Every structure is written in structure tokens, then in C-alpha cells.
């Protein structure tokens, strides 16, 4: 019994040591993930941590931060702290969804393009065309034509990101398909779907996860820009971009309306970017070497 207890202690220690060692080797992953986790918690618990972000209080408008209001109030007397914390929901929702949508479509199209020459020729010309349009401009045009809603914003931000994912996946597929083990799989009669899913797909995952973090960071910035320009999330939903857009007119009198959501947005994007850099170094040494 004692021996078993001893053994379990040894196992627990070695696991803890292993995690500790991994964290020490890739500190950026830990820092990025922790920061992102904090932001996720804030987004989930915003309703419990603060008051109603839409509650108007004209008597207390444009209050300086600190006077009973941690981040001050805006031009309608709304609590900037509550609005900033609630704003994290939209940013994270848009960032994570855009990363998921563009990765899914980019992966599917990229796998097919890497394996079918005719499809490749047609699709890659189309992708080159979309890449030539600045992504913010394309997203703005899509939102302005279809009307603002969170779903439309996610789609509009994801579409310009898809070509970048397609190019990445396609380049990996083109390299992997020439590998001897793929030739071996073909020679023993493996079918195309099996080759793609079993032999090619796993090789695309590491660079894809790294790319997804960059898409997520860029999507959060684009969402804020769209809302800032008045072509994003509907104004009745507090998103960081909306709060900043509303605070523009009062910038000289009440800069805190812009700065607090701005700082939160920056920290969140920074967390995702740091996590992405860490994952790149940890998961894909080839790309890491090129980027270092």
C-alpha cells in the first residue's frame, strides 16, 4: 500500500515537473494563454461583475474615472467599466468565430486545391483576386451591403482571411503529397479521401493552429475598426469598437471612454498574438526558424 502511494507521488511529481518544464521552455504560450483565459473569464462573468452596461444616468455623465466609477462614465452617464467588460464578449466571439470559419473553409478549399490541378488553377486565381482587395475594405463593403449584425460581421471578416489559410494549406499539401509515405499509401491502393484525411491533414494542423491565432487577432482588430467606422456590430450592443466610436466626439473632454476599451482590446489581441508566436515556436520549428 505504501509502495503504491509512493509511486503515485512519484508520478504526480513527474507530471508536474513535465508541465513546469514545458512552461519554462515556452513561456510565451503560458503568458498568452493565461491572459486570454482572464479575458474569457471577464467575458463570461461580465454580468456578475458589473452593473447594466446600457443603464442611462444623465446626472452622472462624463464622470472622471475613480469617483465611485472605476473607469468613469460616458456622455449618457453609462458606466464605462461595465461597458468595457461587456464589450469583451463581442470581441472574443467575433475573433474566435472568424478564426474557426476561415480555418474550416480555408482547410477544405486548400486540401482540394492541393490535390486537384484544375480546381487549383480556378480557385487560386479567385483567391489571388480576393487577396488583392484590402481586407478591411472588403469587410466594410460586405457589411454595408448586407446590414449590420454580429453574424454578418463574422462572415465579412472571415471571407478576406480564407485565401491566406488556403494558400498555407495548399503549400503544405503540395510538399507532403510528394513524400515517399504518401506514394506508398497510393501504391497500396489507399483512396483519395483516406490519403487526405489520414496522411495530409495531420501535417497541416500545426501551421493551421498558428495561422488561426493570427486570424483571431486580426479579426478582433477588424471588428473594432468596422464598429469604429460605423459599419460593424449594431450600436445598441456594447462592443469595444462601438464604445470607442461613441467616445470620439468627447475625446478631448473624456479620453477615458476611448482609452479603457482600447487598452482591453490591445491586451486581448496581444495575448492572442503572444500565444500564436509561442505555438509557432513550439509546434512548427520550420516556420519558427524562418520567422526568427
Amino acid at each position: 500500500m505504501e509502495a503504491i502511494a509512493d509511486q503515485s507521488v512519484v508520478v504526480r511529481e513527474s507530471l508536474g515537473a513535465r508541465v513546469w518544464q514545458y512552461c519554462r521552455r515556452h513561456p510565451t504560450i503560458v503568458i498568452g494563454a493565461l491572459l486570454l483565459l482572464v479575458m474569457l473569464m471577464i467575458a463570461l462573468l461580465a454580468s456578475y461583475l458589473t452593473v447594466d452596461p446600457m443603464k442611462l444616468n444623465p446626472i452622472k455623465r462624463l464622470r472622471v474615472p475613480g469617483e465611485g466609477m472605476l473607469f468613469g462614465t460616458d456622455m449618457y452617464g453609462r458606466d464605462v467599466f461595465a461597458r468595457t467588460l461587456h464589450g469583451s464578449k463581442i470581441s472574443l466571439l467575433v475573433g474566435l468565430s472568424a478564426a474557426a470559419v476561415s480555418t474550416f473553409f480555408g482547410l477544405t478549399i486548400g486540401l482540394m486545391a492541393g490535390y486537384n490541378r484544375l480546381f487549383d488553377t480556378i480557385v487560386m486565381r479567385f483567391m489571388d483576386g480576393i487577396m488583392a482587395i484590402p481586407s478591411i475594405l472588403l469587410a466594410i463593403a460586405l457589411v454595408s451591403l448586407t446590414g449590420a449584425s454580429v453574424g454578418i460581421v463574422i462572415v465579412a471578416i472571415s471571407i478576406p482571411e480564407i485565401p491566406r489559410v488556403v494558400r498555407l494549406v495548399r503549400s503544405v499539401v503540395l510538399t507532403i503529397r510528394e513524400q515517399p509515405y504518401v506514394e506508398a499509401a497510393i501504391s497500396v491502393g489507399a483512396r483519395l479521401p483516406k490519403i487526405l484525411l489520414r496522411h495530409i491533414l495531420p501535417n497541416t494542423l500545426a501551421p493551421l493552429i498558428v495561422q488561426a491565432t493570427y486570424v483571431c487577432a486580426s479579426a478582433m482588430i477588424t471588428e473594432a475598426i468596422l464598429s469604429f467606422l460605423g459599419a460593424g456590430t449594431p450600436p445598441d450592443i456594447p462592443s469595444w469598437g462601438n464604445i470607442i466610436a461613441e467616445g470620439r466626439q468627447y475625446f478631448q473632454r473624456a479620453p477615458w471612454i476611448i482609452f479603457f476599451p482600447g487598452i482591453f482590446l490591445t491586451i486581448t489581441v496581444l495575448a492572442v498574438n503572444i500565444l500564436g508566436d509561442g505555438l509557432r515556436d513550439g509546434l512548427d520549428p520550420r516556420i519558427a526558424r524562418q520567422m526568427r
Partner: protein
Amino acid sequence: MFAYVIRRILATIPVMGVVAIFVFLLLHLTPGDPAAVIAGDYASPADVERIRETLGLNKPLHVQFFAWTGRLFQGDLGISIFSKVPVIKLIGQRIEPTLALATTTIIFAVLVAVPLGVLAAWKSGTWIDRSVMIFAVLGFSVPIFIIAYSMIWTLSISLHWFPVQGYKSFLIESGFGLEGVCRDTGRSGCGLVPFFRHIALPSIALGLVYVALIARITRASVMEVLTEDYIRTAHAKGLSSRVVLIRHALKNASVPIVTIIGIGIALLLGGVVVTESVFNIPGLGRLTVDAILHRDYPIIQGLILIFAGVYVLINLLVDISYTFLDPRIRY
């Protein structure tokens, strides 16, 4: 070489073709009646019918597309729904501030980023290198309007070093313009100081993300070259570090750097829209935002085509420049 240039120019045709198709279809891919989308929520049926008639939206799709591309080749980008002025004229009126902003930003970014990247590569592993890399990650993470408002708050409002907003025309201030009259003094041109004072903050705000991008690639590219044998030979010959870095390392690392400057143009053009809004610069970016708010579709179409055209053209020049930068590249 000549054949390559021709081939490369021809390769831009399908890209621009796809952009044109995409821009044309954008309105038709959206759910609902395109005329109603343009007219907005408060339009009467007569307004919708008038827009449908003006834009030819009642004709078959392929007829509309060929008529539209036919007009494009004649330089006709359509007429603004809101102001009734030809789109090409509106773009012509607003192009100078955007060109000035983009040019000063690129010059600022390259002048700052390339030395930073080279320095980081040379001092690899030291605090200088780490600081540059931290700056590069930060530059990517701070949205343009946050940088812009922080700079306005500190440098314009608190220290009064720069004007808060606005733009002074390069053509008018320099005295090169046709109008040639300085707004402040009434004389022909009042020097370039007002122009630079107004363009400095927007260029820096817009340029920081670009600096981060170029510095990062410069560092990676120079670091790779520094491991080459000819660098060791150059050091062994007794050449100074400066000569080795600039003449041997940077020159051989230039292809990826020039490539990223070209690719980053898309980032820059997107950023122009935000920067011009924050600093109240009457350029193409502001025109874009105004067009969106009015749902002025011909202007949005025209601007996307112009921005995509500039991107394609710059990347064409980048590709052609490879043969000059690296004589080993032969097509």
C-alpha cells in the same frame, strides 16, 4: 527578362478580372433587391425604381456586367448616387491627401524598420534584439486608432507639438500646385512645414504596424544571411561590421524585405481608411467611409477597384525588382 515582364503583366489580368467580377457581384450576392439595398430603409418605391433604372439593374446580369466593364475600360466608374458627380472625378479630387499619406508612411516605415531589423539581427539575443521583437509584437497588437488617439492626446493636446486634426495640401503648400496660394498667408506657397506638421502623426500612427511587419522580416532575413560563408569571408578580409552588414548582409537579404513591403501595401491601404477618419484627412479613406454611410455603391465599387489595382501594380513592380536585387534570379 523582357519576356518575363510581359508574362508577369499578363498575369495581373486574371487577378484584376476576378476583382472586377467580385466587385460587380458584391451587390447581387447580397440578399434582397440590389436597388432596395442601395436606396436604404426609408426609400419610396419610386426611389427604388429610379435607382434600378439609373444603374441598369433591370437588365439581365451578363448584359449589366459587360456594359459595366465596357465603361470601366473607358475610365467611367459610374456616377455617385448621393452627390450625382462622376466617381472618377470624386476620386481625383480626394487622391492627393491619400497619396501623400501613403508615401510619407512608406518612407517613414522603411527608414525606421530596416535599420531596426538589421540592428536586431546583428545584436541577436541581446536586449536590443528582444526590445525590437517586443516592439514588433506590440506594433501588431495595438489597433491604429488607439495609437492615433494616444499620440493626439500626448503630442497634440498636452504638448501642443502637432495639430490635432486636419490636412494641408502638399501641392498648395509647396507652391507646385495649380492654385498655388497659401491659405494662411495668401502668398504662393508657405513652405512645407505646415504639410509635414499635419502629416507627421497620421504617418507615424499608420506606419507603426508596417514598421513591425518589415522589422520582423528584415531581422529574420538578415539573420539567415549572416550565417553564410561569404559573411565570414568578408569579416576575415578585415571589413568593418557596418560594411559587412549593409553591403553584404542587407543587400542579400533584400528580396524578402521588398516582398513584405509589397504585401504590406494591402495592410497600409486598409489602414488609410481608419487613419483618415481619426485625423479628419479628406482623402480616399474618408470618401470610403462617407460612401458606406450613404450606401453610395458606385463609389464603393470604384474605390475597391482602385485600391486593388494599386496593390496589384505595386506587387508587379516588386516581382520585377527581384531581378535587379538578386542577379541569381533569372526568368
